[in-house]
């Protein structure tokens, strides 16, 4: 693990740990204000004339991925159950709106709420089964759920089989921009709020030691399933928006296994178990992938694979986690060093850096 601490030199003089620590403190103290500022700034591009075209699409997709990465992190990062099948909720949401809007004739906003709810229902059934598993078994079972869902949608008539569904009568681009952006802001606010409640603490406790959490009297199954369903709600709603945004949905795009890795990579690069991390990771990695896609067509997934390998091997704590560790170097002195008996706590590598930045 290479963090800034060993490199020293120029970086340290420009950005000393205390400065980073101050920044984290500031973000922590003013998280709601920062989120509000972010919410205002995000509404500006369409107001100032960016209403369609490539950059509009890229921004909208960025928000979409941020929603997916943050939802993944709720279960994968906060609770310690890394799912490789979150895209199953996305696909189910996508097909729900596609069917409701095109075949049943229900209005899009209602259909999208329906998409979220159907995904939640699916998640509750699947969750009870797979959340009993841990480690390798959980990861592969969720991957199995994703692929089984994909195969089923390939066979059924109602989903249009392998050729999928085309949706032509769709709202304008700005509608999706505000839709995904609004969903992201709501989710960030909710996850941040939850991370400071009993609910959020129990999730973290499950990640750190599930047996101990159970022994303390928490019904861990309830908490795990609730987090899993909350993730499904946002992932399903995002999928519900995506099918109309993309005007086309088929088993390959709805249950996209590569996207599933992509959103895990985003959470990991940004820093798992934080609110800002997955969002930063989503914005960063999506920008890189877009650039690669434009410059070297067809190589974006190679880059994705390489990015995953480099992150996992190089800095598994991600941007926010590594910075938090760097900032934590000052912890020792803040608590008065050895004299105050702070030596033990300060050197504890598990010490949770309270990083909850806005955007």
């Amino acid at each position, binding site marked *: 693990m290479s963090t800034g601490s060993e490199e020293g030199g120029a970086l340290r003089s420009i950005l000393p740990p205390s400065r980073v620590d101050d920044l984290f403190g500031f973000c922590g103290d003013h998280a709601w204000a920062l989120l509000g500022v972010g919410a205002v700034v995000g509404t500006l591009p369409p107001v100032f004339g960016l209403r369609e075209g490539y950059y509009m699409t890229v921004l909208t997709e960025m928000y979409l991925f941020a929603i997916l990465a943050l939802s993944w992190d709720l279960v994968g990062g906060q609770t310690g159950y890394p799912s490789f099948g979150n895209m199953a909720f996305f696909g189910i949401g996508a097909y729900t709106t596609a069917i409701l809007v095109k075949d049943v004739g229900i209005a899009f906003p209602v259909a999208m709420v329906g998409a979220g709810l159907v995904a939640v229902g699916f998640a509750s059934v699947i969750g009870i*089964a797979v959340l009993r*598993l841990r*480690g390798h078994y959980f990861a*592969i079972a969720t991957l199995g759920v994703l692929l089984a869902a994909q*195969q089923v949608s390939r066979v059924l008539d109602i989903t249009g089989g392998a050729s999928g569904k085309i949706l032509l009568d769709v709202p304008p681009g700005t509608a999706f921009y505000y839709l995904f952006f609004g969903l992201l802001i709501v989710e960030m606010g909710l996850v941040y709020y939850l991370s400071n409640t009993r609910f959020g603490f129990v999730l973290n406790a499950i990640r750190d030691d599930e047996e101990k959490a159970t022994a303390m009297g928490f019904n861990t199954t309830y908490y795990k399933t609730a987090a899993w369903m909350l993730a499904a709600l946002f992932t399903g709603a995002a999928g519900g928006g995506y099918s109309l945004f993309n005007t086309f949905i088929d088993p390959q795009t709805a249950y996209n296994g*590569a996207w599933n890795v992509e959103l895990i990579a985003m959470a990991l690069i940004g820093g798992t178990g934080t609110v800002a991390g997955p969002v930063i990771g989503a914005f960063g990695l999506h920008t890189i992938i877009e650039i690669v896609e434009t410059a070297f067509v067809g*190589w974006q997934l190679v880059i994705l*694979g390489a*990015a995953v390998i480099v992150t996992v091997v190089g800095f598994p704590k991600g941007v926010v986690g590594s910075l938090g560790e760097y900032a934590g170097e000052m912890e020792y002195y803040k608590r008065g060093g050895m004299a105050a008996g702070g030596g033990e706590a300060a050197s504890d590598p598990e010490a949770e850096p309270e990083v909850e930045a806005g955007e």
Partner: protein
Amino acid sequence: MAITQFVVNGLLVGALFAAVAVGFALIWGVVDIINLAHGEMVMLGGYTSYWTLTAVTGNAEGSLGLFLATIPIAIVLLFGVGYALQRTLVQRVIGTDIFLTLLVTFGISIAIQQLGIQAWTANPRSIQVAFADPSLLVAGLVVPKMKLVAFVGAIVLTALLYVFLQRTRTGRAIRAVSQNPEAAALVGIDVEHTRAVTFGISSAIAGGVGAFIATILNVQPQMGLIYTLKSFVIVVFGGVGSIPGAMVGGLLLGSVEELTAGLVSSQWTLAVSFTLLIVLLVVKPNGLFGEVTEP
């Protein structure tokens, strides 16, 4: 009669699944890694055989002997690939979070798969062996000759691995590392080298099987994940660390798939496999033959 035919087909293909799964189980048991790039080794083995044959004959057709001669090449090459992957990448994440080990092998899987598409396009390719036609007819059952050859080949590879693990010095070292890496290191076994050899051997078997798969089915860059997952189903079914268990699991999975294809529809085979995976994991995570371990 039709059902017997489906079961025969299933057993023939199932042996190939089993041989792939044995390598997957070996890495799981010895290195304690779920290698999500295992299916890519099958793919690379298939392409190695395909391109070697193409280089020799000008097209991907040849006699049985010529095809069989390409298999050692696939095996040696894939051993090198597996050894190198373990030494350069996987070794670095061993002992960290399980999630990170999964992610690094998934990253390798995507990178290999996408490089494969760049190099060889996404079109499926297959090897034509002149010897294949006509199929044998045994007691009213159709047995395609190449499937029989592949079946025997898969059994031979698995049996060789079994003997290797039981009888040779390296095999004993591998089993020792699997049981207790610290104790193995104490008696002078180079643990990292042994793990890399295990990775290499597992990849080599997958590569050899991949060559057979190129003759009876086809190879394409994105085929890998399905073989990885089938391996997982089989290993969960047979129990981690049990070669006979994996063999039985593979033959059963092949039969179930062929029966689904024959009695319901071939579109449903994969959906049934993956559902079987989830059900098995939930109901019986230690496998039918496996030792009791913490899931």
